């Protein structure tokens, strides 16, 4: 527990107010993220309903097994993140560091698998605008499917990278003794962000990978 370090910021009257404000701030931020991804999802939904066959066929080119593995990895990372938050609450610093590092590791595994998937797309020339060779009557609309695939998973990956960065910073701060059972909510709020990014993927996976396989 950090002695003598004032974590109360001058604009707040007490730590409770600071915690409530930080929490509300993160929730409002997540709402903006919902609107951001929502725009993408809305666009996807419009085209999916316009070209259901094309999208189903294009979706077959995605590897469901790889996607499922990635989904499992992310869900596991949310578990380790939740465990980290709990460790922070009960001020078990070593466990907290371990779980944060595990979460970072799992996030990195996710990104690694994504790199592998993207490379595969490049190899099979399924990248709109760069190299796109798609057989069949639905070639045109498949471009749109893959455009959304890259836009949505790319945006998601970007959010993961930022999340991993924040987790890394958090880990350093934990090692420096910044947090205690009285002041741990930055970990909690990062956890909120991480869970949100996880949930976005849980929507992405069926929409992109499982379409047409139902």
């Amino acid at each position: 527990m950090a002695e003598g370090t004032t974590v109360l910021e001058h604009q707040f009257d007490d730590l409770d107010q600071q915690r409530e404000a930080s929490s509300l701030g993160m929730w409002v931020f997540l709402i903006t993220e919902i609107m951001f991804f929502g725009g993408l999802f809305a666009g996807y939904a419009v085209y999916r309903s316009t070209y259901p066959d094309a999208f189903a066929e294009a979706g077959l080119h995605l590897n469901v097994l790889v996607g499922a593995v990635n989904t499992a990895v992310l869900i596991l990372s949310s578990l380790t993140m939740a465990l980290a938050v709990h460790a922070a609450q009960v001020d078990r610093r070593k466990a907290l560091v371990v779980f944060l590092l595990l979460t970072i590791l799992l996030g990195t595994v996710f990104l690694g698998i994504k790199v592998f998937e993207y490379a595969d797309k490049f190899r099979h020339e399924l990248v709109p605008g760069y190299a796109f060779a798609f057989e069949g009557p639905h070639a045109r609309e498949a471009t749109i499917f893959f455009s959304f695939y890259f836009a949505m998973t790319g945006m998601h990956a970007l959010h993961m990278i930022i999340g991993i960065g924040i987790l890394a910073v958090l880990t350093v701060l934990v090692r420096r003794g910044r947090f205690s059972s009285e002041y741990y909510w930055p970990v909690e709020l990062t956890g909120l962000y991480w869970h949100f990014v996880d949930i976005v993927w849980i929507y992405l996976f069926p929409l992109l990978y499982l379409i047409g396989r139902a």
Partner: protein
Amino acid sequence: MVTRTAEPRTHYLNVSYGVMSWLLTLDHKRIALLYLISITLFFFLGGAFAVLIRLELLTPAGDLVESETYNKLFTMHGVIMVFFFLIPSIPAVLGNFLIPMMIGARDLAFPRLNLASWYIYTLGGLFTLVAAIFGGVDTGWTFYTPYSSIYSNTHVILTALGVFIVGFSSVLTGINFIVSIHKMRAPGLTWFRLPLFIWAHYATSLIFVLGTPVLAIAIVLVALERVFGFGIFDPALGGDPILFQHLFWFYSHPAVYIMILPAMGVVSEVIACFARKRVFGYKFVAFSSLAIAALGFLVWGHHMFVSGQSVFASLVFSFLSMLVAIPSAIKVFNWTATLYRGAIAHDAPMLYAFGFIGLFTIGGLTGIFLATTAVDVHVHDTYFIVAHFHYIMVGGAVMGYLGGLHFWWPKMTGRMYPEGWAKLGALLIFVGFNLTFFPQFLLGYLGMPRRYHFYPDEFQVLNVMSTAGASILGVGYLIPMVFFLWSLRYGSAAGANPWDAKGLEWQTPSPPPPHNFPETPVVKEEAYAYSSQEAERG
């Protein structure tokens, strides 16, 4: 000779000196002034483009600049004015400065985010400026596809990136305001005791956080299409260019309420003070702000009545657009009623408030014309639209901004501005504005399309009138610019409360101390408790 009152006490301006103390400040008041400087620069840049546009339109022929250049001029004018002036102006300058003070707090909830917000704004502005220097963009500020995504060969991505970045600035400001208003009000300051300025900014912040991300995604998709040829808006690839319009206007319609709600907040404060009366129908005005924000998200399709959208969709949007006019009307009536049996002073801030009421009313009424589908078919994409939105944004928002600057200038700087010159400025702005934009209603109904570099001869006289008005308007804007700067050195010292106004911000010295209040105030009365104040004295 002006006697300078000795200012031995510490306030937020003299507590520390040096460039770094400003660039690394966490004080919401200093951040507000940083924004004031940036926003003023962009206002004059956008205004310079407007000058060139109006000069070109003096003659029917396109003889001042090439068509390509003209197209860039109106685009840059729109992009700069909308994203770098109107959207931030009142929230980032007056909101940042006043919201903590009005709620009795020492600062906003997240001071570091606040500073980051200014840096992000500046970064976005830099991108757009660089784009302008390298030749600008010619898509119109609305970036319609497929022109913007495929055909334009100007700096679309660079400019769009600037807009994308500055959007984050808005979102952070919105988050900061929402959390501060929820969590940091002084003891006794219940929601219905809040100044209406706060309600207006709360509603604005809701739009900031819900709408801006959708614009961000629209811009990202256009950029991806330009760089990677994604095809989302490209009909040759099965894409739909109209989808862009839906995504764009889903944000950009609520954005116009971002631009006007804060000005309405200013007007409520100014009218209450200079009529020495509480705002009539306080709760109705407060809820109208929320209603405008909520309804504002449901009407975007009224920009698309002739886009090929279905008749049914158009009628739904028309109906909802009629509804969104009502809360604004309620506010105008309530402000007018506030004047009834008031004790009305005609200082410059109040003149701006009067101007706002008149011009916003005209602008808002012409909005009914546009919500009426059959009439909009005729006037869409003509100068009627240009006139409508300038009445609201210049006649409304800019006058609200200027009125607010005048009203709170003594609080922010400790100096009074010269009242005579201020009245002259207000008058020139009012006259110049109407002469500039009223003829445009006539031009629009006559059929002169917007974004035209050259035009048929019969439209010239009205265009000349409009340009003449613009020259008066320009002079009108320069006058406050000059005297505000002058007042920093030569203005008479203002006390804590030169207007004898209610509101927590007036309970501290001018300029305020770094943490606003020596101790947290406790609120025991309603907002605008002017009568009880007088009753105590009498």
